[in-house]
C-alpha cells in the first residue's frame, strides 16, 4: 500500500475517534460546570433563607416560641424556594416545579429541629411538603424500673430531665456548671474565682449550681451511654452506645466540665444530637424516595454523607441544611446539599457571639480586642441586638429602622477580624462571665415551665 493510502486510512480511523473524544470531554466539562453552578445557587439560596430567618427573628419579639417560630421558618422556606427558582431561571413555572427536587430542609435550633419534607398532610390528605412537628434532641435512659428518664439536650449546657428518678416522677430543667467553680457567700457569688456583679447573672450561677447539685446527687452515678434506649415497647438499645458503661456523663466535676469541648458530657451530647438528626433525616428522605411519584419524580433520593466538619457546624449553632437532588444536568443527575449556619439568632448564644461596649469609645468590640479603652466598664450583649430592626411603634406607613445600641462596629475586631488578640485580663473575664450568665438567664427556653411547680 502506498504511503498516501496509509495516511488516508489513518485519518479515517483517528478523525472520528478524536472528534468523539472531544465532544465527550466538552460534555463532561459542561456537566461539571453546571454542577458547580447549581452548588453555588443552592448555597446562595440557603444563605438567603438564613438571612430571612435572621431578619424575621430580629423583628419578632416572640420568635423563640413554638407557633411563632414555625411562622418564621415558613417565611424562610418561602424565600429559599423563591431565591432558588429565580437563580435557576425557572421562575416562570412557579415554585411547584422545583419542589419535587427538594427531599428535605432542616432547621437545627437550640433544643431540637424542624424537618420540612414531603409527607401526607393529614388535614387535606394531599402528599405535599410540610414542616413536620418539632423534634427535640432527646434520648431515654433506662436503668431499672425506679430510674427511667428522658433527657433533652441543647446546643449548650442546658438540659431538661423528666421521668422516674428513685421511684418518683420528676421534671426539671437547668444549666450544668461545675459545682466547685461556683461559690456562694451571702449575696456574693463567685465563678471560677471571679466575683459576679450582675444580679441576673448571679441568679444564673445560683440556679445552675443548685440544679447541677441535684443531678450529681440523683443521676450522676447511674447514667452511662449504654443505658440509652430507643423509644418503644421493647427497650431496644442504641448499637452506637452499647458497651460504653464507664462514662459517667452527668457526673459534673472539674474533669467533666460542660464548658470544656472534650468533656464526656459534651462528647456524648454531640453524639446524641447527631444520631437523632441523622435518623430522622434519613427516614424523611427515604420515605420520600419511596413515594416520590406522587410529586412526579422517580429519582432515587438518598441521604448524602455529611463531612465531619459539617456535622460540627451543625451541632454548634443554629443551622439550616438544604438538599437538592434529581435535577438532570447533562448525562447525570444533580445531587447536592448546603449547610449554612446562622450565628446571629435569638435561640442560642455562644461565647463568640457576645459583643462588648465600654464607656471609653463609641464602638462595640469582641472581648479580646486590643482597642478596648476602658476595661472596667465593659458590658456584653448578644450580637443580634446590634442589628438594625424596624421600629414597630410607628406602624406600617412610617417605617423606620432603629438600633438597640447606638455604638458602631469596631473596625479592628468586627469589620476586619484579623487583629492581634489580647490575653484576657481579670476585668475582661469578669465582663465575660457576667454577660454569659445574664444572657443565658434571659434566653427563653422551652423547658423553663418545668421548674415552676
Amino acid at each position, binding site marked *: 500500500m502506498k*504511503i*498516501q493510502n*496509509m*495516511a488516508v486510512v*489513518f*485519518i479515517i480511523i*483517528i478523525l472520528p475517534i*478524536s472528534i468523539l*473524544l*472531544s465532544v465527550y*470531554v*466538552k460534555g*463532561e*466539562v459542561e456537566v*461539571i*460546570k453546571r454542577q*458547580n453552578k447549581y*452548588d*453555588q445557587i443552592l*448555597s*446562595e439560596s*440557603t*444563605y438567603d433563607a*438564613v438571612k430571612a430567618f435572621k431578619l424575621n427573628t430580629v423583628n419578632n419579639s416572640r420568635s423563640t416560641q413554638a407557633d411563632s417560630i414555625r411562622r418564621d421558618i415558613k417565611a424562610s422556606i418561602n424565600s429559599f424556594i423563591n431565591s432558588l427558582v429565580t437563580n435557576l431561571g425557572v421562575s416562570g413555572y412557579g415554585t411547584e416545579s422545583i419542589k419535587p427536587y427538594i427531599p428535605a430542609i432542616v432547621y437545627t435550633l437550640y433544643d431540637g429541629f424542624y424537618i420540612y419534607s414531603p409527607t401526607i398532610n393529614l388535614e387535606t390528605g394531599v402528599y405535599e411538603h410540610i414542616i413536620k412537628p418539632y423534634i427535640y434532641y432527646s434520648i431515654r435512659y433506662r436503668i431499672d424500673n425506679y430510674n427511667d428518664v428522658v433527657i433533652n439536650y441543647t446546643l449548650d449546657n442546658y438540659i431538661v430531665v423528666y421521668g422516674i428518678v428513685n421511684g418518683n416522677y420528676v421534671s426539671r430543667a437547668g444549666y450544668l456548671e461545675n459545682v466547685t467553680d461556683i461559690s456562694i457567700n451571702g449575696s456574693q457569688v463567685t465563678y471560677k474565682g471571679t466575683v459576679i456583679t450582675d444580679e441576673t447573672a448571679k441568679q444564673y450561677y445560683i440556679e445552675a449550681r443548685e440544679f447541677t447539685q441535684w443531678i450529681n446527687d440523683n443521676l450522676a452515678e447511674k447514667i452511662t451511654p449504654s443505658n440509652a434506649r430507643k423509644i418503644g415497647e421493647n427497650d431496644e438499645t442504641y448499637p452506637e452506645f452499647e458497651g460504653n458503661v464507664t462514662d459517667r456523663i452527668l457526673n459534673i466535676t472539674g474533669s467533666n466540665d460542660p464548658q470544656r469541648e472534650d468533656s464526656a458530657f459534651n462528647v456524648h451530647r454531640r453524639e446524641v444530637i447527631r444520631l437523632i438528626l441523622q435518623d430522622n433525616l434519613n427516614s424523611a428522605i427515604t420515605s420520600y424516595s419511596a413515594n416520590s411519584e406522587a410529586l412526579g419524580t422517580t429519582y432515587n433520593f438518598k441521604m448524602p454523607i455529611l463531612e465531619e*466538619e459539617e456535622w460540627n*457546624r451543625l451541632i454548634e449553632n443554629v443551622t439550616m441544611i438544604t438538599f437538592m437532588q434529581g435535577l438532570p444536568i447533562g448525562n447525570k443527575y444533580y445531587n447536592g446539599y448546603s*449547610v*449554612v*449556619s446562622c*450565628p*446571629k439568632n435569638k435561640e442560642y448564644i455562644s461565647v*463568640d457571639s457576645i459583643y462588648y461596649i465600654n464607656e471609653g469609645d463609641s464602638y462595640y468590640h469582641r472581648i479580646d480586642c486590643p482597642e478596648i479603652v476602658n476595661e472596667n466598664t465593659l458590658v456584653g450583649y448578644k450580637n443580634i441586638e446590634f442589628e*438594625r430592626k424596624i421600629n414597630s411603634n410607628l406602624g406600617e406607613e412610617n*417605617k*423606620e*429602622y*432603629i*438600633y438597640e445600641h*447606638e455604638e*458602631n*462596629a469596631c473596625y479592628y475586631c*468586627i*469589620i*476586619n*477580624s*484579623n*487583629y*492581634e*488578640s489580647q490575653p484576657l485580663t481579670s476585668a475582661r473575664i469578669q465582663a465575660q462571665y457576667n454577660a454569659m450568665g445574664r444572657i443565658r438567664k434571659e434566653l427563653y427556653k422551652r423547658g423553663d415551665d418545668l421548674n415552676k411547680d
Partner: protein
Amino acid sequence: MGETLVTVTAIFLAAILMFVFPLMTVSERSDDISELNVQTLTSQFVDNIKSTGKLTLTNYDNFVQSLGATGNTYDVELEFKILDDNPGGKDTGSGLDKIGENVYYSVYTSQIEDVLYGSGSSAGQYKLKEGDIVSVNVKNTNTTISQMLRNFFYSLVGNDSYTIAASSSGMVTNTGK
C-alpha cells in the same frame, strides 16, 4: 519530477496529519481536562472559605499545590470584599428609612498573603465575617504544549494569551473564628 513533488508533498502532509494533528488534539484535550480540574479546585476552595468564614494558610498552600499538580504554573488572584457595617444609619438621620446600603472595601492577594505569612496571633489565617464577598481568579502563566503547537501555525502573542482559566466567587455565610 512531477512524481517526486507529489511524493514530497504527500509525505509532508502525511507528517502533519499523522503527528501534528493528533498531538494538537490530544494536547488540547489535556488542557480541557486541566481546566476542568482547575475549575473544580477553585470552586471547592471558594466554597470552603465561604462556609468556614476564613482562609487558612494550609488551605491556601494546598490549593496552590493542587493547581501545580496539573503540570502548569498559575497566577492566583484573590479578592476579598469586606463589608463595612457602619455606614447607612446610626449617625445620619437621613438613613433611618433606608435599607440595603452596603459599603465594601477590598483587599487583594498581596495584602491577604501579608496576613497569612505574617507574625503574631492573627497569622496563619485570614478571617472574614458573614456578608463579605470572596472572589478568586486563576489563569495559567506558562505556555502549554497546545499553545506552543498553535503558535507554530498561527501565532497568538500578548500577556493575556492564557488557555486555562477559572474563577469562582460568592458571599461568606459564616463568621470565622
